[in-house]
């Protein structure tokens, strides 16, 4: 099964996904870094130009350090250069651990090889040939440039009151319900009703106004969507008072039956 993510298992038996980034984002990140360095060098040249030959020498020294150590320093201290941060990229080892000084130095020194024959042509071809989009420096240093996805937390008032799922959900199912809740604005209404309809039998077991069986199908669909989003809200951690609400619902059900 094709996937962009690489599964990593820690010694503690925890699985998590690393998503190696492809060439497009990395080219853009590199161009952003190039721009930043260019601006710094131009500013320096204006300032150091006032110092004559001495300034010229100093300028070359600065140029050297900026060219070779700019990525290393940022990668070791922050995990990514500013350009990479801008594109949500980060440099890590193959096993997901933070990049160390030696591997960062190695991967950045090998830019010389990746640069050949012209402007990272080798590196680009290497990225297209490698399954994890590694350029030669990455292969040598055992590093990966990964994409960091920031979890999207919706505003709390958007969510319906939380409710427990009537059936225990495994991890993938929890993720799917959460996705359903978060994509409320993206998925079209009929499609949402259709998706929630798949789970109709499960949602019937949920506490709530079960006696409204007589309502139209459209209303029933809306109810399903609402219930599924309630479970999603619960899974998203918005579970204050969920137990209490659940209990009251159960007691009301008990009295009604």
């Amino acid at each position, binding site marked *: 099964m094709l*996937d962009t993510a690489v599964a990593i298992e820690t010694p503690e038996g925890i699985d998590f996904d690393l*998503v190696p980034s492809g060439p497009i984002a990395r080219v853009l990140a590199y161009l952003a870094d190039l721009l930043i360095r260019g601006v710094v060098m131009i500013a320096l040249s204006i300032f150091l130009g006032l110092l004559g030959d001495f300034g010229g020498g100093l300028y070359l020294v600065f140029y050297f350090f900026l060219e070779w150590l700019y990525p290393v320093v940022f990668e070791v201290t922050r995990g990514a250069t500013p350009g990479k941060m801008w*594109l949500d990229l980060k440099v890590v080892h193959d096993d997901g651990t933070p990049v160390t000084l030696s591997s960062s130095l190695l991967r950045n020194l090998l830019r010389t090889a990746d640069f050949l024959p012209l402007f990272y042509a080798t590196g680009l*071809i290497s990225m297209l040939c490698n399954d994890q989009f590694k350029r030669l420096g990455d292969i040598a240093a055992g590093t990966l440039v990964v994409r960091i996805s920031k979890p999207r937390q919706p505003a709390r008032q958007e969510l319906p009151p939380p409710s427990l799922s009537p059936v*225990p959900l495994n991890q*993938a199912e929890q993720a799917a319900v959460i996705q359903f809740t978060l*994509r409320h604005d993206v*998925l079209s209404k009929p499609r949402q009703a259709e*998706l929630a309809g798949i789970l109709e*039998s499960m949602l019937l077991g949920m506490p709530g106004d079960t006696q409204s069986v007589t309502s139209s199908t459209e209303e029933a669909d809306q109810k399903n969507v609402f219930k599924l989003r309630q479970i999603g809200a619960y899974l998203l951690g918005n579970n204050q008072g969920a137990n209490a609400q659940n209990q009251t619902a159960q007691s009301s059900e008990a009295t009604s039956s």
Partner: protein
Amino acid sequence: MNPANIVFRLRSRDPHEAVDLGFKFARRWWPLLVKLWICVTLLPFILGLLIFDNSVWALVLLWWWLPIWERPQLYVLSRAVFGEVPSLKQTLRAFPGMLWKQILPSLTWRRLSPSRSFDLPVQQLEGLTGRPRTMRLSVLHRDGAGSVAFWLTIVGASVAILLMCGQVLLLYMLLPDTVTLSWKTLFDIDLLWAVTGYLSLSLLGPFYVAGGFGLYLNRRVLLEGWDLELVFRQLAERCSRGGEHSAVSTKPSRMSSGGMAALMLAICLFASGYPDLSWAETGTDAADDGQELYTPEKAQDDIQQILSGPEFRRKDVTRVPKLWKDWLESDTGNDEGDIAAPPDWILWLGQNLAKVFQAAAWIAIILVILYVLYRHRDALLAAVSRGSVVRARPALTRVMNMDIREISLPESVSKAAQTLWQQKKCREAIALLYRASLSRLVNRFPLRLSPGATEGDCLQEVRRLNKEEISSYFAKLTRSWQAVAYAHHIPSQTDFQELCQGWVSLFESGGLENVGGVDSKAPETGEPHAS
């Protein structure tokens, strides 16, 4: 569309990741895509080369008609991701059908659209035109997908130019020094540029189409919740099966712990097979009775004694030449002479340094060869004189720090062992039997042991003699010896008697000349050696 047939993992991805997914598609079906690309474009390209005087025009035309060449690529990809990869022939047969659809806008006002490969599926797969197409595109372009499609096109075009120039530069770099070529002439070789341009387009074309398709597919997944549908269907199925769901979440962990237990068990079993290989010393047992108590005062004395020993009284004398003094003395004498004329031997060394190193290298090589020969002398000798006398080495005298020369044994081993046993020196008795057996086996049978052999090694070597009686007896003896030596487990009287009897029947009764084989069971006569 059936989500179960999809060959990529369904989940929501952000647009950049979706492009990467498309690149994965291109990598997955790369041979087919490139073959297809060549089938479709090579002929027009060659025709263009023949028609135009300047070959670059052929490349420009090929580039301008990219939307046409991209259609069959998308055809392959759009079927392949749902699990049915079309063959090259099928695709080529379908090509004329997709060629004419909206070809005019594609080649004119939409040609320079920055989201070409992203929009292509809407046109080709959904077949939308006019206003519905525009609305559809505006929905698809939301959430950053449009900007990523833009960057995909921009970066793709730049990389294509870059690779083209890169190839030309590489060829230029590889030119020998004797050929001088000015940049002007390099730019004039239009055929070179056309061919390199064609190659770079062939490399990047499939990736560009696949990237745009990945982006499109991800938008569809997001907007229509394909990933949710798949999981929800599985969940609904699980619920309808009923009752079992409570067990599902706990099952994997239970299974893994069961697996763990099995693994541990296997390790234990494996480890318990090893005591045979453990190594033993027959030296005196430290846990002898009758040793007096080790008091703190005595320990203190010992510590003091060790601390005053040579290990803690080491002195290093380092001599450093007194440069200052040397300089002063040299300054008084000759001032300039030594700078002008360095000693002769330094001059000679400078002139013949290479020869000196050569000589040193030869000496080193000879030494290494000699060392290797010396190190493997046995194997070499054996190889040279195969079939002749193999046992040139003298018989081994010590194994496991035990003396196994025949002289060291008492005249009648079994008698001596019996005496020791009666004196309650059970350990010594078994040790004597074991040592004597080894000695007999080494000296009177062709048993070869290395000085570092362990009990297990000895047993294996004995088995290799292919004498059933001896090896079974020796195995029994080894077991009881190990039990005594390591577990202080003394065998019963009958066991010991059996061991003694066995020793007598195997090694003593046949006399000294039973070198060849002791297969015949010797009658239990009395010992020939009266003691």
